[in-house]
């Protein structure tokens, strides 16, 4: 009471607190000591803030990119393996009931039976023993993204006065006598799918605005030959070739896909000037390669003195699976082709399946779905979700991420030590000011708090700046990474680096797009603020220990 009375007495001309200068003096002084009046930039503050910002930036960028890689691998794996695999304990010949049961599950959107094994491929003197899989072309694309694996213009021809216009094959090309091989197998055997070039100089339609004739489909049954298209009028053209018995008249309104196998499907695309009689386009088709296939089942037949000729197949397309864990030497054929090669008609080795979006995103949902499927199918079947099948890989990625954090945390600590030393020096320089503040009524705790706040402000500004740097880096990552890789590895090296670390197509998430990214930003920003504030604690403690009278006497 006595103290209150005394204070009231002292403050009879007291001041209204609800005015503009509302910042507490500790924060005010901490700010002013970092950013003094009449000075545009404080060298110490600038260095400290930039130091923290760079640390935060590096930590965020690395982790966000790691998350981007994880996301990319996740997508690649799902594209190559679906959301899960259902494996019978023994190979199954009767599986239509199970397929129906799987399809009936409300979370399943697509199911694809498969059969797999090893085959020996031979082309002349060259051999390959790829991982081979038989799939159902009708359901294949809905579970595995086969079409997206097939490469456009692989082994593209570079003719001087012609243009390679080979269309990208699709899973529809897959027939019992046609297979897709991985680019590694294609290189090893020296095989390629059919291709087609369009001659430039023989096209009469060179005047400006003329349309163009492209090729929509080039099936593996085409033979090497020249093909010619001559327009009869603006809506009809004739296809002729040595391999055709008769010319074919095509109307532009006809469905171009309605064409027999072995004949390229041409598509006329009119330009600003309509086609007219006599417009001529010339093409040359190079037939696709063939090779021979041997299967282990043939050995048994040979043992029984049976004559077993190898099976000849055509190359329908060449694929590359972006998922690095997929077999580099691989062959995709139809189910029937693989069953024939295994000598086991009707057999399957399991199913790949895809689930609805919501299930696929949440691993716990998918795990539950797998459990339900397993109990539905009963004994004899195992259901494995994609993240379990590839757990080793994601464990590796997580380990790499933690290792990165472990390596990078010292960066933050180095910044903290630098801040602590600078603030400690500041305390020693300001001993008399500290004494003065206490003499003017500041408590020792408050004076110490000023230095702690300085650490906090440096951390806060560093975190904000660091997050901004990280956002800028993410926004301009292609330009920045291109520049860095070019400097380190040169133009040629850039291609090699991007094969493994494809920064250009990497999907990374801004904090407002993904909770994981937001979490990363917030975690590292908080870490920087915490570490910087802690760095201010030691100088703060030192300041509180000073005796004001001694401080004022100090020289």
């Amino acid at each position, binding site marked *: 009471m006595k103290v209150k009375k005394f204070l009231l007495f002292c403050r009879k001309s007291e001041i*209204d607190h609800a005015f503009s200068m509302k910042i507490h003096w500790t924060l005010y002084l901490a700010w002013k000591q970092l950013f003094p009046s009449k000075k545009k930039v404080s060298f110490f503050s600038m260095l400290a803030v930039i130091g923290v910002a760079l640390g935060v930036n590096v930590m965020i960028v690395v982790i966000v990119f790691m998350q981007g890689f994880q996301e990319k691998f996740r997508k690649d794996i799902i594209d190559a393996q679906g959301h899960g695999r259902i494996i019978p304990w023994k190979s199954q010949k009767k599986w239509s009931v199970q397929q129906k049961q799987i399809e009936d599950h409300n979370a399943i959107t697509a199911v694809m039976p498969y059969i797999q094994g090893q085959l020996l491929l031979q082309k002349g003197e060259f051999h390959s023993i790829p991982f081979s899989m038989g799939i159902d072309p009708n359901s294949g694309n809905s579970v595995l993204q086969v079409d997206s694996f097939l490469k456009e213009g692989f082994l593209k021809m570079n003719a001087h006065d012609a243009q390679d216009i080979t269309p990208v094959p699709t899973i529809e090309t897959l027939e019992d006598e046609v297979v897709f091989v991985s680019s590694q197998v294609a290189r090893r055997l020296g095989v390629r799918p059919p291709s087609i070039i369009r001659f430039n100089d023989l096209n009469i339609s060179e005047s400006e605005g003329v349309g163009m004739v492209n090729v929509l489909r080039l099936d593996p049954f085409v033979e090497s030959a020249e093909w010619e298209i001559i327009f009869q009028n603006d809506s009809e053209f004739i296809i002729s070739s040595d391999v055709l018995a008769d010319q074919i008249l095509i109307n532009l309104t006809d469905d171009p896909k309605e064409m027999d196998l072995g004949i390229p499907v041409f598509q006329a695309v009119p330009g600003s000037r309509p086609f007219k009689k006599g417009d001529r386009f010339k093409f040359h088709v190079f037939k696709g390669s063939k090779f021979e296939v041997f299967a282990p089942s043939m050995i048994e037949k040979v043992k029984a003195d049976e004559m077993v000729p190898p099976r000849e197949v055509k190359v329908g397309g060449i694929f590359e699976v972006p998922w690095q864990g997929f077999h580099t030497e691989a062959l995709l054929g139809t189910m029937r082709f693989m069953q024939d090669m295994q000598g086991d008609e009707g057999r399957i080795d399991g199913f790949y399946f895809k689930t609805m979006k919501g299930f696929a995103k949440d691993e716990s949902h998918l795990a539950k779905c797998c459990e339900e499927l397993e109990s539905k199918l009963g004994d004899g079947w195992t259901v494995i979700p994609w993240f379990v099948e590839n757990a080793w890989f994601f464990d590796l990625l997580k380990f790499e991420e933690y290792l990165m954090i472990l390596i990078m945390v010292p960066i933050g600590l180095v910044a903290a030590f630098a801040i602590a030393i600078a603030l400690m020096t500041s305390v020693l320089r300001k001993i008399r000011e500290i004494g003065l503040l206490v003499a003017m009524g500041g408590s020792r705790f408050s004076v110490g708090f000023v230095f702690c706040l300085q650490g906090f402000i440096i951390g806060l500004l560093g975190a904000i700046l660091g997050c901004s740097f990280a956002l800028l880096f993410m926004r301009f990552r292609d330009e920045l990474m291109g520049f860095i890789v070019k400097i380190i590895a040169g133009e040629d090296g850039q291609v090699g680096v991007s094969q493994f670390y494809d920064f250009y197509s990497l999907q990374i998430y801004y904090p407002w797009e993904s909770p994981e990214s937001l979490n990363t930003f917030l975690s590292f920003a908080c870490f920087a603020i915490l570490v910087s504030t802690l760095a201010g604690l030691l100088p703060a403690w030192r300041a509180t220990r000073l005796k004001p009278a001694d401080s004022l006497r100090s020289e």
Partner: protein
Amino acid sequence: MVLRAEGLAKSFPFEDKRIHVLEDINLSLESGKSLSIRGDSGCGKTTLLNLLSRLESADRGTVKWQDFEMNASKQCASKEGVLRAHFLGVVYQAYYLIPELNVLENVLIAAKLSGAYGKEVSDRARELLSNMGMGNKERQIPGKLSGGERQRVAIARAMINSPKLILADEPTGNLDERTGGEVMELLLESCDEEKTALVLVTHNQKFAEATDETLFLKEGKLQN
């Protein structure tokens, strides 16, 4: 009575002995009155001011601020900073302005320390600076000011909370005779206007004589 000290004594350890700097100091000061203390260098004048401002604790004796006994009790210690901010103004020989703050901010920081924020405080700070002849330099930083100007700012800072008592430790010690005279004049005028008591430690006889009472500190004791 604004200030009363009774039986104050202070000693410091030196090697194996204790040096008795102050012994049985008694003084009192009424509101609006001024008192000067003179003495040889090292006689304990600054120590006496530190005891009066409670920056140091006395070995014996009591200090009363406005009849409120300042002692080492928990209740008193917890409020000491707040009481000091409102009751006391301090002026030092070396000014002790905060170099990162401009003139106005240096004055305002003392107000903020006492918990006073707002436009009225700013207006009062400006008025004080204007009275000190520093109205046109409120945005200057201390490094750009002369010694006399810095001391004027320090006086304005001491006055900002309308304290009951100002302790001035050789405020003209770093100034030439003429500037020192001007500063002293301002200090005395301000104390007179605000009815603030003043304890002035000085070597200068002329300035000492300008106060209502003059004491001499010799061999640890105050003499008339």
